[in-house]
């Protein structure tokens, strides 16, 4: 099942204006993604952890999200330290552990985790519907916002459609394996999913036309106002500024 475990809540972050949070998340992710200094990245990780704490998210579920980046991080830790040419840290027989390789792995790991946490805390704490409205506020093209909202609206419906088809094949004793029968079954099942989606789209479009859809998107989002937004803007600008200063003053990779 598709779920949004962080979207609802009443923490300080949940009550901020979605538009502000999207802008802040974008600025923060780009700054961290472009930084190189280990001190900067370590501080960024602390900031990100603070954001998660402020959002009062279920920590177990946050940790689950780490599995997404863990695979790639393990892959680079398994390869880069041994293949990167440079000063040798340790020598294990024929294998040499290189210092720049380890530093690069550390840098990438810190960056990935810091950005992941900030995104969970700032953006995943709103439903995609609110995100769509926030992007509308930021003057993204109407069609794109509309596409986001309609896609979001229908992923849940189509997921159920898929589960229904899956149940139907399971009742007929389908047991997936590495053979042509399995791939053919999946292909036909997905083909059916696309055909039904297209049919559904026609009906949805007709219903929209019936209700007078003329291509204009109306957002009735009332952005939360109040002192919290100002506090957030100030804190966020201070964190961005301090990260930028750290990065400029310690641009090289240091330990």
């Amino acid at each position, binding site marked *: 099942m598709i779920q949004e475990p962080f979207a609802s809540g009443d923490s300080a972050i949940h009550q901020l204006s979605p538009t502000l949070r999207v802008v802040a998340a974008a600025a923060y992710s*780009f700054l961290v993604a472009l930084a190189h200094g280990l001190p900067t990245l370590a501080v960024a990780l602390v900031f990100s952890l603070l954001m998660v704490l402020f959002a009062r998210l279920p920590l177990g579920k946050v940790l689950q*999200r780490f599995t*997404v980046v863990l695979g790639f991080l393990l892959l680079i830790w398994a390869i880069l330290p041994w293949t990167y040419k440079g000063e040798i840290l340790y020598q294990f027989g024929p294998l040499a552990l290189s210092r720049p390789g380890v530093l*690069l792995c550390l840098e990438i790991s810190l960056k990935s985790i810091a950005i992941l946490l900030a*995104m969970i805390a700032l953006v995943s704490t709103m439903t995609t519907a609110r995100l769509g409205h926030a992007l509308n506020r930021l003057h993204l093209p109407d069609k794109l916002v509309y596409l986001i909202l309609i*896609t979001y609206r229908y992923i849940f419906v189509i997921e159920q459609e898929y589960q229904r088809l899956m149940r139907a094949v399971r009742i007929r004793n389908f047991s997936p394996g*590495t053979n042509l029968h399995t791939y053919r079954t999946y292909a036909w099942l997905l083909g059916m999913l*696309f055909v039904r*989606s297209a049919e559904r789209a026609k009906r949805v479009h007709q219903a929209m036309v019936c209700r007078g859809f003329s291509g204009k998107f109306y957002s009735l989002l009332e952005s939360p106002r109040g002192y919290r937004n100002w506090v957030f803007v100030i804190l966020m600008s201070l964190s961005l500024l301090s990260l930028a200063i750290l990065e400029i003053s310690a641009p090289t990779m240091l330990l």
Partner: protein
Amino acid sequence: MHISEGVLAGPVLFSGMAVAAAGTAIGIKKLDFDQLAQAGILSAAFFVASLVHVPVGPSSVHLILNGIVGLLLGWAAFPSIMVALLLQSIIFQFGGLTTLGVNTVIMALPAVICYYLFAPLINKKSSIAMAAAFACGFLAVFMSALLVGVSLYFSEKNFFEVATLVVTAHLPVMLIEGIITVFCISFIKKVSPEMLPGAR
């Protein structure tokens, strides 16, 4: 197929964003308001399809299907894939904001190329159409894997081994996508041929 945040260098991220923005602009321009529901619901379908894991030996791979996306949507594949990736990054934390551009290019550029290469062949007689469908599924994933490799390599020359591993690891996925595209396209051709390009 996506690259997680914090891996790529600035120039790669920004060129990815530029290409993705251009592609999306063209896609949106070609997309009428009349086709929005169609594109949105199909991109929801691809979002769901990419969660499907098919078994390969002891392990399993998840489908990408950007070849079929390209055939069914043409240039609209760009906005459609971008939206699906944005939703994935928010709902599952796959990929992210900074890598959204690069990841969109990785999946949507091969989709559009496949559209131009194979859309004219899909309505030919069945042997040609089947070969075209297989090539479409196979090449779309191959080009995507190659783009992942290139993005990694241009970020950091020392990623070479990682990049080659990523491309070779996707070889079985390419075969499976090719096979699935053949069956899927022949199914759609029988059931709802007006969805395929050329019939419109």
